[in-house]
């Protein structure tokens, strides 16, 4: 029972990080209708920005964390302007191929700059202590990332559902042309959505990098998980991302621990298959009325 509880905690902590990564992807898809595979590399680059600012420049973790969010938000706007705005009305395959190309370009660039041999730690608050209850332990650093995640989601919820900016985003998501007729500037909304999506990717990268070291291939597994999470949670649903992230993180850990270490990566895809068969709109999505 102790082992089970411990895996629940580890899984919830990892799942929360994945949920942040997925929320960025979900936000961009929800409003802009583009699946951005390059998001995995924004996560990785976010880790590197946090490493450079916090570790190499010797500042506090949170300085690196916010730098990662801002830089990745801005990079995301650049990508929207340079690539995605030309793909918005193109078939899904074009979007996927273009974003896959970006994924490879960004990944190769990072490898060329930083290589893969070195380990790049980021000092994080809480890494030297842990809460224990009997044989169960919760690392301080994991608790800090959970707290950051909750703050990020609360902020995101506030922005999307309690501000004028959020209303313009939701209006654009519901009907781009109608929103434009109401005076909402499409390009401005796109820039904001991509900034927020990229910033969430950067935040996920900074947290994952601080917990597990920064490395050029660190965006791959979170990207795979994030793709499943946004389908599982309901395409474009932020609340869905949180719930699906938690479930997937816990399932991943329980599978590794109880079934087999090699089978952890199988879980997301089994979940994906099940969801597509049983509830294609995901946990929080609405059925596609056009289907």
């Amino acid at each position: 029972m102790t082992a089970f509880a411990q895996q629940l905690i580890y899984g919830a902590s990892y799942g929360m990080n994945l949920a942040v990564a997925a929320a960025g992807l979900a936000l961009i898809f929800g409003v802009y209708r583009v699946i951005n595979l390059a998001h995995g590399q924004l996560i990785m680059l976010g880790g590197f920005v946090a490493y450079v600012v916090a570790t190499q420049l010797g500042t506090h973790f949170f300085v690196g964390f916010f730098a990662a969010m801002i830089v990745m938000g801005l990079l995301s706007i650049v990508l929207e302007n340079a690539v995605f705005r030309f793909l918005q009305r193109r078939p899904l395959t074009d979007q996927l191929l273009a974003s896959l190309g970006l994924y490879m370009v960004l990944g190769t660039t990072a490898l060329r700059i930083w290589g893969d041999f070195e380990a790049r730690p980021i000092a994080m608050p809480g890494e030297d202590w842990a809460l224990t209850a009997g044989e169960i332990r919760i690392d301080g650093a994991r608790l800090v990332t959970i707290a950051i995640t909750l703050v990020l989601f609360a902020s995101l919820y506030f922005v999307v559902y309690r501000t004028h900016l959020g209303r313009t985003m939701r209006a654009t998501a519901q009907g781009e042309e109608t929103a434009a007729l109401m005076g909402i500037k499409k390009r401005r909304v796109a820039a904001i959505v991509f900034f927020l999506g990229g910033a969430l990717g950067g935040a996920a990268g900074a947290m994952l990098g601080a917990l597990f070291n920064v490395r050029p291939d660190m965006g791959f597994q979170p990207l795979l998980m994030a793709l499943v999470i946004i389908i599982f949670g309901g395409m474009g649903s932020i609340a869905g991302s949180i719930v699906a992230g938690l479930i997937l993180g816990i399932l991943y850990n329980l599978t590794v621990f109880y079934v087999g270490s090699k089978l952890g990566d199988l879980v997301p895809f089994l979940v994906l298959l099940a969801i597509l068969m049983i509830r294609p709109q995901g946990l929080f999505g609405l059925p596609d009325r056009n289907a």
Partner: protein
Amino acid sequence: MASSFGVIRAGLLGAALCAGLVAGPQLAKAEDTFKFGGVFTLSGPASFLGLFEEAAVRLAVEQFMKGDCIVEAVPPQPCEGGGLKIGDKVIPIEWTAYDDVSEDKKSIDAVIRLVEQDEARAIWGPRMNSALLSAASILDPQGIISICAICSSPAMTVGRKYGHDITDTGVIEKHGMGEFIHETPERLAEHGIDPALFDGRKKLGFIGRNELYTVHGSIGWQEAVEKGGGRYEYQHDWAVLYPFGTTDFAPHVAKLAEQDPDIVLMDAYIFPDMLAIMNEMKKQGLNYETGEIILLGNDVLMLQIFVDVAKDQGINMSSGYVWGWQEHNPAQDEATLARVEKYVPIYNAKYGDTEVGNSSPFDRGAYDAAIWFLYGVQASGDHTDNDKIVEAWRNLKINGLRGPTNEFFTRPDTGEKTGQLFATEYIIGVADEKVFYTGISYRDELFYGPYVYGDKLPK
């Protein structure tokens, strides 16, 4: 429409004819040169291995062409420059290398290109263990010689007439660790190691990335335990093999901790993976700093640079409970040191300012292997007959940068020379944050079991 097809067909016919006209002289030219190709991991996550290897092989070919080989064949072979000395002719060497970008498919594409387009007679690589079997199925039927100095997989040589592994393998390495944990207290004490180091320890664990190298390593680990006759317990099924791209190692280490091992062999070789696992081990009760477990690792764990990086992350490897191996002799004889002293400035002058950096054991092993192979081609007396080349090469030894009289392993059951280097494993420890050689090494006792020699790899 019909006329369009006609134009295309005519064009294709013309191209084919042109290709035929060009192919004639090329084949004739092939007799006058020795075509040698390579597939290396020069970019992507595993590039730190391939970059060293490619740089060293390229340097070896250049040195051979210049007549400045540094390392010597036993019995001696000439190195007079201009190329291979075959009879009274000097045959130039044509070297072509491709990058597999750390991808299996690109590895195989490059192998096919080297065979079909470049007409290579011998191919170095591919390094990636996952591509080895596919490459073998292309190269072996055509009798093309296959060589690797950083492959570490039995798939390079076992059951293969033309395959050559000029390093140890994951299996041989684990046999080395197996010998170490079965050492007598007297021998441990003789080498300054706590004679009670392994007392009361019974259960073994294994953790590594899920790939051919570690799967074979875990099997070798089990073989070593079986050879020991029941002093320890380990089964291959217990191996914790995490997937490529793993970010959070907590559940994998938890699975290892649940087995409650006394000794853990960590067979990871990517720094971030190793550090994350070692950090997580301490948190989950597998503490090698306090002696709760003994942590054994490979030659990457025993690199001084890794010990330094680990220290920066708060990991103490000097507890007396962390041990590993190296394949490169840390206690070199004078003649070897003289060769190394001549080689290192040449290497550093050529690559010192590049990403390959300064000379290391990785490039020296590859340099030895490349010159050794070229001597073997010469010794065969016929650079166009791969059967003769293989036979001559395998019966040649080399006094190299890694030490004197490197040789291929001879199967005890058939007396045949295999393509596997008769490698030695040197046991390394860490004290006062510095790696040191214990003075314990193994060779003959490591070469047993079907994964080291056999007619084919067991399923």
